[in-house]
């Protein structure tokens, strides 16, 4: 298992997050003293610990990568381009799910629940393999009626079905 490159990225990312949080907390908020802690104390401590752990993860992974390089003379491609923890990894499903949610958030109050639901469903359905247009349309209609019945009629959510 070549987890090293993945761990290197993960460790670096965690270290950056920790460092950012620690520095931001230390400079922007009052740190105070242990007896009288300010709002910055806890995030500063946690951020620094996180930065340290991230650094350890990244360094350990780097050592393993170098070790591999010496013994095998090949480097794995970064994990972003490989399957990673996700089987059948593909960009299209992930992107269409994100787009569906973004679309929904933009249209829910502007257009109303039913158009937003139709758009969300049609966009999310782009992820399905194999793609079926008819099924997507039927599903979009069914889900929008269901959502309207449950949330607007049933639970009385303050959203209008159509908003023009």
């Amino acid at each position, binding site marked *: 298992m070549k987890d090293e490159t993945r761990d290197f990225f993960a460790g670096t990312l965690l270290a950056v997050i920790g460092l950012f949080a620690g520095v931001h907390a230390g400079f922007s908020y*009052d740190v105070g003293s242990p007896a009288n802690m300010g709002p910055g104390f806890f995030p500063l401590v*946690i951020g620094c610990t996180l930065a340290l752990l991230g650094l350890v993860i990244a360094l350990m992974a780097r050592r393993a990568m170098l070790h591999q390089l010496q013994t095998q003379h090949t480097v794995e491609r970064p994990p972003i381009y490989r399957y990673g923890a996700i089987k*059948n990894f593909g960009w299209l*499903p*992930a992107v269409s799910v994100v787009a569906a949610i973004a679309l929904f*958030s933009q249209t*829910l109050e502007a257009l109303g629940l039913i158009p937003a639901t139709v758009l969300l469903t049609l966009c999310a359905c782009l992820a399905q393999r194999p793609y079926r247009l008819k099924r997507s349309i039927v599903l979009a209609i069914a889900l929008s009626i269901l959502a309207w019945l449950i949330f607007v009629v049933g639970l009385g959510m303050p959203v209008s079905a159509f908003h023009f």
Partner: protein
Amino acid sequence: MEFLVTIGANLSLGLGEALTVSNLWYCFVGVTLGCLVGVLPGLGSLIAISLLLPVTYHLPTSGALIMLAGVYFGADYGGGTCSILLGVPGHPAAAVDVLDGYPMSKQGRGGIALFMKSIASFSGSLVGIVFLILLAPWLAEVAIHFGSADYTGLMVLGLVAASSVGKGSPIKGLAMMLVGLLLATVGTDLNSGVARFDFGVMELTDGIELVALAMGVFAIAEVMSSAGTTRPKTNQRFGLRDQMPTREDWRRSFAPIIRGSGIGSFFGALPGTGGGMATFLAYAVEKRISKHPEQFGNGAIEGIAAPEACNNAGVGTAFIPTLTLGIPGDAIMALMLAALVIQGIQPGPEVMTSHPELFWGLVVSFVIGNILLLILNIPLIGLWVRLLQIPYPVLFPGIILFTCIGVYSTHNNVFDIWILLFFGVMGFVMLLLKLEQVPLLLGFILGKPLEENFRRSLVLARGDFWVFLERPVSATALGVTVLLLCFSFWSYWRGKSKKTAIV
């Protein structure tokens, strides 16, 4: 004797609370929805509970908890169905059912496996509930005397145990737990009124909405990674007659159910042992002591009975630390705790004395819920099996929709959908980088109380850090934490060096 009388009085109080029409209804809705979500592949109890968390905003306190607990039990009952019939675990906790359940199903004994799963789950749940009834009042009485330093120690222990004991790398789990703690600091600091990490965004001064975080990291990330996949289907049908175990099956399952319940009850109460670890242990124990270990993996009914009993016994005992100390052992219990906080109840030992009807009503509703589940799962199993015929491409747009609307309904604010999207993408990146999501959620939920207790205990001790080692409870908790850290790193390195030795 006096002890028994108290318990009897408490249970009758609980019975009065649980048997109201509305609470019975919430219990029924909870177990049915739990079963539904548990049967569908890819949706475990964790996703089920985070999907229903927004609904609890609009329910009375006991109704909300009864429903969520019903979902938890129901998802555990339903969880094994997919493993047994399709050979694909619907979610991690049910993975062990594949080992013997799928072979049984291939031998045409799938109905019997499903029946025994329900019976074992029911018996296990009852054992867990009995432990909960016996131990919780005692622990709550002890915990009344805990100070903030003790709580700090216990929370550190809970967080470290849940994030370092497990399948993945302990150091990455700990790091994710720290990220969770940092996310909890977003928003207005209660002591000083300073808004932290708000970056000028007005909505962030209220903090990050838990429902959006949980659904993003679990449900949306899961859908993002699996939306393009297809799942196997089944067209098996079951009636009551196909499910009747033989006398031999009953005889062979009895002792494993007892042993599984024992193992589950013990580990359920400890932090960090959820997520199927105890169930695999129960399976291993049965295999070790069986006279026919070669049958395991080829459809031994003990391989269903013990892990299922273990799984459900752990559900009951997991509530012990959650309801008495306010310290959850895993992410699901953390969500239960969050539901309490949403209802305006401060978790801790006072819950049992100030809201006895809530605690005992919950306990009694567990029993009622399990009886309902037995009814739902044995005569009506055919209905659940038919759910497995729904193709995943039809399912996932609905999951996305209900997640979005659920998040929106918490504050009727579109901003929360953006938070959901942010955490969905973050959860997806975490899946890619093999970073665990459970410690993140646990850190996020315990972050606020941890910071508060930490600050309070140091204020009381005038900044003297020794306070954590002077009090016996916090000193013990921190000592166990250090031992646990040493142990998990040691076993991780040992496992790793073994693996590299084979490669």
